């Protein structure tokens, strides 16, 4: 009998403390499987975003460890963590953070070109397909400043998905969107989860969080509940 597959992402006793002594995340242990759609909720300052940055390998825990696809990331250097982020993790932030000098299409191409897994022609085809799937086909050649808020966020999602990551992390992705666009973005996340991609979304909007299949609630950096919304 073969051993059960490890969860895609696991946090074991993760604590994040700032040098000045402030604790952002305290002793968090959780495991997220493939295809899960998780909403991380909690009041302002509860450590939701800090936990997301730790799970996304943008930050390092002060204690505990993060395992991605069963691999302990504690001993990895900055280059190795960057390589993991590039190939396996996609980020979406509250602000779109699109590079203003480049079109939506070129923004989506940036991580693909950096990874260099696909030839440029194929990368372009995939980028256009991603944009099309998000209803952005017509706006592919436009600069971010020529796009609406919702379109910018969709372009940012397309960029996060460029390298076909196993894990998509979103930090308040609807914070700057109206209700209609926010719902549309959550539809996209739900669709991605349905396709088997793991999605973790930090949000303070409980109505939107209710659309996830699992909700992790934080208070003062600690997980106080973890289960169906």
């Amino acid at each position, binding site marked *: 009998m073969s051993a059960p597959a490890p969860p895609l992402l696991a946090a074991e006793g993760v604590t994040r403390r700032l040098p000045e002594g402030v604790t952002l995340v305290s002793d968090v242990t959780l495991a997220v499987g493939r295809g899960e759609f998780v909403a991380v909720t909690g009041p302002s300052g509860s450590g939701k975003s800090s936990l997301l940055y730790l799970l996304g390998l943008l930050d390092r825990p002060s204690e505990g460890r993060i395992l991605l696809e069963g691999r302990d990331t504690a001993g990895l250097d900055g280059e190795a963590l960057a390589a993991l982020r590039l190939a396996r993790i996609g980020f979406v932030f509250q602000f779109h953070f699109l590079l203003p*000098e480049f079109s939506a299409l070129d923004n989506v191409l940036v991580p693909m070109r950096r990874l260099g897994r696909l030839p440029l022609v194929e990368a372009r085809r995939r980028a256009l397909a991603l944009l099309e799937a998000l209803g952005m086909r017509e706006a592919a050649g436009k600069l971010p400043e020529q796009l609406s808020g919702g379109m910018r966020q969709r372009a940012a999602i397309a960029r996060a998905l460029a390298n076909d990551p196993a894990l998509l992390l979103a930090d308040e992705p609807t*914070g700057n969107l109206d209700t209609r666009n926010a719902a549309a973005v959550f539809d996209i996340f739900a669709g991605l989860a349905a396709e088997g991609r793991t999605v973790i979304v930090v949000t303070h909007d409980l109505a939107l969080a209710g659309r996830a299949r699992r909700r992790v609630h934080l208070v003062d950096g600690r997980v106080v509940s973890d289960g169906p919304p």
Partner: protein
Amino acid sequence: MKLLLDLARGMLARRRRQTLVSVAGVALGVAFFIAIAALMRGFQGYFISQIIDVAPHITVKDELRAPPRQAAELAHPGGAVTVSGVKPRDRVRGIRAAGDKLAMLEAMPGVAAAPLLTGQALLRYGARDVSATLLGIEPARQARVSNIGKDMIEGRLEDLRATANGVILGAGLAQRLGVRVGDTVSAVSPAGTVLPMRVTGLFRTGLTALDNAQGYTLLKVNQVLQNRPNVVNQIHIRLRDVTRAEPLARQIEARFGDRTESWEEQNANFLTVFVIQNAVMYSVTGAILLVAAFGIYNIVSTVVFEKTRDIAILKSLGFTERDIQLLFLAQGLAVGLLGAALGCALGALMIEGLAQIRFGVETPAGQDRFMLVRDWRIYAAASLFAVAAAGIAAVIPARRAARLDPVQVVRGAA
């Protein structure tokens, strides 16, 4: 790398005006460097080539570098007896065994040597008296060690042999005396000998000091005029490789004992001035490029400051610190390269512009324009310096960008 260059280009293009100002700063520095270096090196090169062409590469003189030790000192070395008022032995001046020394020098590869007797003479023509230095030469040998043959503007060097007591005068000297070729001047030596001498030719070297006060006659004639039969007081040497002059001069002096001076030693004062000139030139143009480098530092720093969010997102996407550092370094280098390219073109234009300038006055050197050097190495040095300065200027902000903590930036933006 292509991606990083595209990103760098995009970021610079976004700040077009500031980028252009920085590029222009570098270009001006490079252009001025090129133009000034071309001017200075042109002048210095011309001057040195004149010296090398006109003067011998090495001169052996009938002097000693340090006065010989007196017999009294030799008899009582470091003794308790002090002998004062000892007069040096009166010896006949001139290079001893000059013929043997000449033969030895001629036997060296790449060396041509000629004997001379130099001496002062008062040249008199009508009511005009002009003091001059007369060089007694053997024309065939002298032609091998100097460019006097090429400098002749009237007559030929060989005419000295065909004319009894012939003399070739510098053009300026002839003008001061008011003589022409064919005229006869009266030469009076410090020994009191008076010789009528017929002007057989005129020369112009371009060096006023020589053209106004020097003349050539046959060695034998000068020996008679100076009343120093069979005496040679200088040996002029010309080398195939002029850079060997100084070491060879030291070698000859060590061997013969006669004071031997290379062209560098004889013109050390000019060469020192050139070193100072070059230091001033490089300091000034270096300062221009330094200011340009500050411009580059400023633009890259500003871009880093403005792009903190982009840096954060690039890092979250998986760009490494090295990628970020290269991205901003590339921007500095791009400004440096663009500035260098533009500066080279501008520098070339400035050189061509300077070349068009005419002073309208014929200088003694026969030049009425700037002497300019067109050497690719000047362009290469200026470009290298500019790109290096740009790179160094960009390193600090690039490192700062690479060390940016994306979490802090994203938190700040939220």
